[in-house]
């Protein structure tokens, strides 16, 4: 610890090196947590796979809210687009899991393009309202187009072929879980590169002051739209993963409830770091699983109270609490000669 602290100011690009170390450690932690889940809860792998799928949705929302400052209460539109696209493709004979994920990503990206084009016409409250209206519209459309989506019964009766031709999607959900974990890690690494790219920094600038960005000679709309497409691809992959692992796509995957919950998870975990998205999802869904089994209304009261507490006490989310405590600890270490 102290060696790192000492060598930091000397190295010529200290920030980049620090980032690499931190992200490497973060990745190890994600893998360790994933492995722990596999060994500790072998009977709950279906739930854990669901957690991973939702984590992708929350990550995709973090790209918009945390990095671009675009608040959305309709993110499930993109998740649902991926889920239905993968389900429908699988039903029509495209059963290879990697291809299905790719189809989900493309569908989500297309949905993101449309949603971004509409939402970016407005600002503030109107933008939020548009996001809600879009997810509700998508919900009604999915319900109405029951010939393709199965309507309120859900889309079922499809089964993906074995992963890489060898690993069957077994009854215990082992394959699905490990597949999902691998996907999550790959997406996470890719997104870390995206947010560290010039594009990622530009987005952070837009979040703070779009007028400033324009006077630096950069267009705002195409940048945000690009992020919508990336976000859509990530959410779409989450939807496809959910479809592959449960082999059913319900109307709830394009719902306001799922959208609002994903925003709650993100804020609980903390905006704008990608880690917060993962932390928030795991905590939210873990508690939901335990508490709502006892009484769903206790669960609602608890989430509500937690949300109020986070807004009032820890605006950076639970993930932010950790990073707020860390420099304090480091500062104490540094003072010692």
């Amino acid at each position, binding site marked *: 610890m102290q060696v790192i602290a000492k060598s930091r100011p000397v190295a010529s690009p200290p920030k980049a090196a620090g980032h690499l170390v931190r992200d490497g450690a973060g990745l190890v932690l994600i893998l360790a947590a994933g492995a722990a889940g596999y060994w500790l809860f072998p009977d709950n792998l279906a739930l854990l796979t669901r957690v991973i799928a939702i984590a992708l949705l929350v990550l995709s929302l973090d790209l918009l809210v945390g990095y671009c400052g675009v608040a959305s209460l309709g993110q499930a539109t993109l998740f649902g687009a991926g889920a239905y696209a993968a389900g429908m493709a699988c039903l029509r004979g495209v059963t290879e899991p990697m291809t299905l994920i790719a189809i989900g990503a493309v569908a989500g990206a297309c949905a993101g393009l449309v949603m971004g084009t509409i939402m970016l016409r407005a600002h503030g409250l109107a933008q939020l309202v548009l996001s809600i209206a879009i997810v509700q519209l998508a919900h009604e459309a999915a319900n109405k187009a029951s010939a393709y989506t199965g309507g309120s019964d859900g889309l079922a009766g499809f089964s993906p072929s074995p992963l890489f031709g060898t690993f069957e999607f077994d009854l215990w959900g082992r394959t699905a879980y490990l597949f999902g974990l691998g996907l999550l890690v790959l997406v996470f690494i890719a997104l870390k590169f995206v947010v560290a790219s010039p594009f990622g920094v530009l987005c952070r600038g837009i979040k703070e002051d779009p007028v400033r960005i324009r006077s630096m000679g950069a267009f705002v709309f195409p940048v945000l739209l690009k992020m919508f497409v990336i976000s859509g691809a990530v959410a779409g992959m989450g939807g496809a993963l959910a479809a592959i692992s449960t082999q059913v796509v319900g109307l709830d995957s394009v719902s306001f409830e799922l959208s609002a919950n994903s925003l709650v998870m993100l804020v609980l975990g903390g905006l704008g770091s990608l880690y917060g998205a993962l932390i928030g999802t795991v905590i939210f869904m873990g508690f939901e699983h335990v508490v709502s089994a006892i009484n769903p209304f206790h669960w609602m*009261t608890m989430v509500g109270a937690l949300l109020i507490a986070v807004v009032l006490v820890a605006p950076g989310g639970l993930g932010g609490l950790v990073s707020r405590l860390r420099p304090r600890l480091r500062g104490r270490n540094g003072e010692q000669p």
Partner: protein
Amino acid sequence: MQTVFSIAIDAFAYGMALFIICIGLSLTMGLMRVINLAHGAFAMIAGYIASYAQRELGTGYAVAILLAILGTIAISIPLERLLYRRIYGSPQLTQVLMTIGITFCVIGITNFFFGPTLKTIPLPAALSTPVDLGFRTVAGHRLFVMACGVIVAGGLWFLIEKTAFGIKLRATVDNAGMADALGIKTQVVYAISFAIAMGLAAFGGVVAAEFLPIEPYYALRYMVTFLVVVSVGGAGSIPGALLACLVLGAIDTTGRYLMPDFGNFFFYAAVIAIVCVFPRGFLGRAQ
């Protein structure tokens, strides 16, 4: 012709029912600049109280409405002091999250105490019988809701345009700092306006229960509807809210009559179109 007439009556009554609930939210959002997603939660509390009063305490409809309004306001005052006051002027995301949190808590707590069942609010005989208008009969309740809507709109217009409180209110909306400097107690104006908004939510929740039934997830189910209606009308504008309620009520009702399996499709399609054309709502002020 008959269909057209009954659609028109239903659409108008539904629009008025929406209006009574939403106008309170429009005041909160226009005046205090708080996106109160928990508005429906207060309407729900009122519904629970009214149902409890009538079914358990045996009071009449009118008394139940009164109890619901007073009870809801009583509950809302400490919430305004403890929670809402901290998010005046906060970023929208903060307000959205805080009020979603309040909504979840209200749903959880009310259902813990009153049980997760559909809460009926029986109508008095005078309102449940059809009324003969000479050329046509109309459900008495529909007429009652319309009358309530007109009274609420007129009353609010009078309050805001013709009373001393209205002057203070408008001054505070225009420039809170200046109003403060002129000796208007803006905190008090806010508190009273919030209470009025909650009272209207409560009144609307009970009166509109025939259209929007009081059930365990009421606050969540209609959270979006109310927010959308207010945004379409333009936050803070009474005529805007009225227009939005009537337009959206008409679209929704017509859609449900003619193409019932499309659900809310036309409602939200209209919302997207309207918001794209009028980003501040029909009659919203520039921000």
